[in-house]
């Protein structure tokens, strides 16, 4: 049947996002001008530079260490592209002094590690999960929270009717699947009762060792559909086949995040991270930072379902 219109055109096409570069987190963790380390994983600092040390193979240490002669007295990960001699000294210092505190980052809200100068506010990540309307909304929120250059992809998997595992990961090879070395965090939600559930975050990779408190949720609390639907009588696990951020969607996430950052200059246009405290180095930044205001982005629309919040008359019309 003709539609009676001029030049009808079939226009289905598959959307493709711009190509993205793969960038891993920075490897330099700054310290103060006085040479006092502020890296979170260290749990200690040097008031004065340590003594000269002998060369050792650089591949043995995974911890950030102090470089006595490095410009600006930086703490540098041995995985960075430094001259071999510097790396060797670096490792030797680590071996000599040890790195107390690295194995237990505990439940600090702000955590970064030896591989990354990019911290993640885990309370905000937990809040994003609690308020998300679905995986797409959650991944958008997570990438607003994350302050690095990489895109955090998300995989959502309903393991059964009670357990959902959400994985955040750097999709380095852009294959749309989670590889062990790409994981940033996992979040596990378990239904614990008729109207109750709980969830917890665990860090991986650069954030390994972090674990959040266990958050309890209950039917009736304010939360988004991603969590609240588990309490509905008609609930069925949706992601028995996992949802994963598609490589084509990453372009949209970058575009959105750029707009978000541009609208939040106070949060994202810091001139330097130097002097910033990370993790448990005195507790001053352990949990007191207020959530940044969310910026206009103009991308949120509506939901095409009715949530009856007010009493009303009901009329049924059939013809």
């Amino acid at each position, binding site marked *: *049947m*003709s*539609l*009676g*219109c*001029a030049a*009808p055109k*079939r*226009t*289905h*096409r*598959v*959307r493709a996002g*711009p190509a993205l570069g793969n960038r891993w987190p920075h490897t330099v963790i700054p310290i103060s001008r006085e040479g006092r380390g502020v890296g979170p994983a260290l749990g200690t600092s040097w008031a004065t530079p340590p003594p000269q040390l002998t060369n050792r193979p650089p591949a043995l240490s995974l911890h950030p260490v102090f470089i006595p002669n490095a410009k600006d007295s930086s703490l540098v990960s041995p995985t960075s592209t430094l001259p071999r001699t510097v790396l060797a000294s670096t490792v030797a210092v680590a071996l000599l002094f040890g790195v107390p505190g690295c194995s237990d980052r505990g439940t600090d809200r702000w955590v970064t590690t030896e591989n990354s100068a990019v911290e993640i506010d885990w309370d905000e990540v937990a809040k994003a999960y609690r*308020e998300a*309307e*679905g*995986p*797409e*909304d959650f991944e958008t929120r997570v990438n607003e929270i994350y302050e690095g250059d990489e895109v955090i992809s998300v995989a959502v998997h309903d393991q059964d009717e009670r357990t959902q595992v959400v994985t955040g990961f750097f999709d380095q090879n852009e294959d749309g699947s989670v590889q062990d070395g790409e994981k940033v965090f996992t979040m596990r939600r378990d239904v614990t009762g008729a109207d109750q559930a709980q969830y917890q975050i665990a860090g991986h990779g650069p954030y390994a060792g972090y674990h959040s408190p266990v958050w309890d949720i209950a039917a009736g609390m304010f939360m988004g*559909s991603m969590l609240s639907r588990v309490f*509905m*009588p*008609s609930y069925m696990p*949706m*992601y028995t*086949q996992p*949802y*994963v951020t598609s490589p*084509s969607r990453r372009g*949209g996430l970058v*575009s*959105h995040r*750029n*707009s978000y950052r541009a609208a939040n200059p106070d949060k994202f246009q810091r001139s330097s991270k130097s002097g910033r405290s990370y993790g448990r180095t005195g507790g001053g930044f352990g949990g007191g930072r207020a959530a940044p205001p*969310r*910026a*206009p*982005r*103009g*991308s*949120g*629309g*509506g*939901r*095409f*379902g*009715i*949530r*009856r919040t*007010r*009493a*009303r*008359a*009901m*009329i*049924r*019309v*059939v*013809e």
Partner: protein
Amino acid sequence: MPITRIAEIPFPRLAAHVLLHVDDPERLSPDLTFAGFGHGVVGPLELAAPRQRSIVLERALVLALHTSEIPPPDASEIELEFELETEDEQLTSVLVPLDGFLAVKLPTLLGCERDVVLALCNPLRLAPARPAVLGERTLHYAWGDVLSWLDRDAWGGEQFRLSADAWHHLGSSREDG
């Protein structure tokens, strides 16, 4: 005056931004209390769902509708809910079967568009009947919640997006969803 017939339900033609409720640049996430309805031509419009390749329609007739968020679990057909406010600000929900609504309203709405999209939550994952009046047009409907978004690319271009758990496509001869 109470509505007694489907034909009496207002179903305005609206600009795309208004229809999909993406006309407020201050809004960050979908408005869960949105109850607006109507129809309009929208394009480009992406139909996005996990585990499906997105489809972008250059120009589609979109029917913005609502169902109850928590329908009876044994419901066998999609029932629409129109939230109307009377002159004395009393809220009334008018419940209408989708098939009946399309039979009455759709013939007056169709234009040149080859695609008709139901922006409509479908929590029970029911399949609507394909109205014969569609002819060769394709009817797109969703499973799960349907959320609307406005995406902007790095060059300032805009694209509307409807996300759902899954999209299905009823063509004149077969379902290709």
